[in-house]
């Protein structure tokens, strides 16, 4: 009985979310409300970013603070190539540019163990912002670019497609031997190297892969804005949100970041439009600190712990 209950609860977590997404897609054409469409589009963007962030940082423990840099690169790719090329190609360019950029960063920092990676990625947003501002104002003499706008529907479906691809890649990667290599790096990097994992290469490639999705998300979301400049493209909040959402949701499970993003995006939306709009960064920061202090494995971890406790209590007499 206890076993059966556990099974259904796990199944609910495992299959419930894909189901919700499918329903969402099915229902979507019914409500022709721009408000909800925008809301869900942004939620999808945050979900993609969080899942992509977790692919590398969640499993290996190397905390990347550069999500905003990759996202910004995607936005700039869209601004530079949007007129000349079809939308699909622009998204690919955004992803590819982020991949190359992340590969270079990884090659510099991930050869080394420890804190260097986080230290290096922390300032990248500032670097990109300052250099671009300097370039645009002293050499190009015009600040910002105009972006070719796409229809809301196109943005929604491209983003949904990107999100599904991100989830699938994240899931397949976790199940593959590379996923095993990644989590062994997170557990004990020295031991991982001893059993024959090419630690540096695995780290660099995974980091670059996670950047692809962030860049692509940026390239898609840029078409929602008609004008971009470094200030809009490189917002430190975009680095902060995936880390917060993934930590809150829990990084041990693929659905953790998704749950975290959905909850946080809707809270953010409420806060930004309400009387507390000047406080939402403060509230988010406090939630991040609180989460790390009191539930380091996030909501999903908490649920799993409760499940274990309930099922453990029930099965104790049987095993004993």
């Amino acid at each position: 009985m206890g076993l059966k209950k556990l099974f259904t609860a796990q199944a609910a977590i495992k299959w419930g979310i894909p189901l919700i997404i499918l329903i969402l897609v099915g229902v979507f054409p019914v409500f022709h409300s721009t408000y909800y469409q925008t809301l869900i589009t942004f939620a999808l963007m945050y979900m993609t970013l969080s899942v992509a962030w977790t692919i590398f940082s969640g499993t290996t423990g190397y905390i990347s603070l550069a999500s905003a840099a990759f996202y910004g690169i995607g936005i700039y790719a869209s601004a530079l190539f949007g007129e000349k090329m079809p939308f699909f190609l622009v998204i690919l360019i955004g992803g590819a540019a982020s991949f190359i950029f992340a590969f270079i960063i990884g090659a510099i920092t991930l050869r080394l163990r420890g804190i260097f990676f986080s230290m290096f990625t922390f300032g990248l947003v500032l670097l990109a912002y300052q250099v671009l501002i300097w370039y645009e104002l002293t050499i190009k003499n015009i600040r910002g670019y105009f972006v070719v706008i796409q229809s809301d529907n196109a943005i929604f479906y491209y983003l949904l497609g990107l999100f599904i691809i991100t989830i699938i890649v994240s899931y397949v990667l976790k199940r593959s031997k590379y996923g095993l290599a990644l989590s062994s790096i997170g557990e004990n990097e020295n031991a991982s190297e001893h059993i024959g994992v090419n630690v540096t290469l695995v780290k660099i490639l995974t980091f670059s892969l996670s950047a692809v999705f962030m860049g692509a998300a940026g390239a898609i979301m840029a078409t929602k804005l008609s004008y971009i400049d470094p200030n809009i493209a490189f917002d430190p909040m975009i680095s902060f949100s995936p880390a917060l959402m993934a930590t809150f949701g829990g990084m041990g499970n693929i659905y953790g970041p998704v749950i975290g993003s959905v909850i946080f995006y809707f809270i953010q939306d409420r806060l930004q439009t309400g009387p507390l709009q000047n406080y939402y960064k403060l509230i988010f920061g406090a939630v991040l600190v609180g989460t790390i202090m009191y539930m380091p494995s996030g909501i999903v971890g908490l649920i799993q712990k409760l499940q274990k406790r309930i099922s453990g209590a029930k099965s104790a007499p049987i095993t004993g």
Partner: protein
Amino acid sequence: MQDFLNIVIGGLLIGGIYSLISMGMSLQYGVAKVMNIAHGEFLMFGAFITFTLQEHGVNPLVSIIIIAPVTFIAGFILYRTVFTTIRVRADNQGVFEGNALLAAFGFYFILQNIGVLIWKSTPKSYAFLNSIWKLGGADIFQNRLVAAGFAIGLGILFYIYLSTTRSGKAIRAAAQDAPTAGLMGVNINFVLALCFGFGAAMAGVAGSLISICYGITTTMGLGYTLLAIVVVTLGGLGSIPGSFIGGFILGIIGTAVGYINHSSYTGLTVASYYVIFIILLLVRPKGLMGK
């Protein structure tokens, strides 16, 4: 020649303040093992408290006497409550460092938001000792000289404290091996919190000194944190003398790039820091004086 002299003197003067900021971060990471991404926000608070006190007629140099204890206590309590909890709950050192980094990232947003709420995001500045001395054709801003003197003096004072007193010895023991130091009778939670407090106080005082010389904004913290990160890497993670020397090196490089660039946009200066960072990571990741 005159340009060269201007760059070196200007660089050394601002370098003194950079040294103080970086020593604080070095202490926080080297001993307490917290990569404090919110370091620049303590600095911003120091700067704005000085600004507010100055508006009420308090001499900026006197306000250091208030800011140092306030930021010290804030840092001490922060470590004793938040980071100690994280440390106790973490499975191993790596998990602690990762979680502490994320928590510091959270504090970065909390503190910056509080700063913006209190002081808004418009740039502020005030005049203090703004006369210029001439020395062999080079300009020396009086306020920068005073600020650098204070920063260097505090840095040397702290080094003497570390190397001569009993609690300084405890800090050095904890820096080498915290668990063993704990076994040898050092009250480790107290000493680590002490280090974090000292680091925060150094940031606060540095902020106060910066407000004397330069304009300040509530969003300036990020730039100074980045600078401190580069200096700490340059000097060697956890090496206090290394950070002290690294601050001057970066001060001179930053001033030189700013001098060549002649633009109010600091893109190239930040880029030059990153170039140094990249070279360091490729050639000598343990820094100038690292172990």
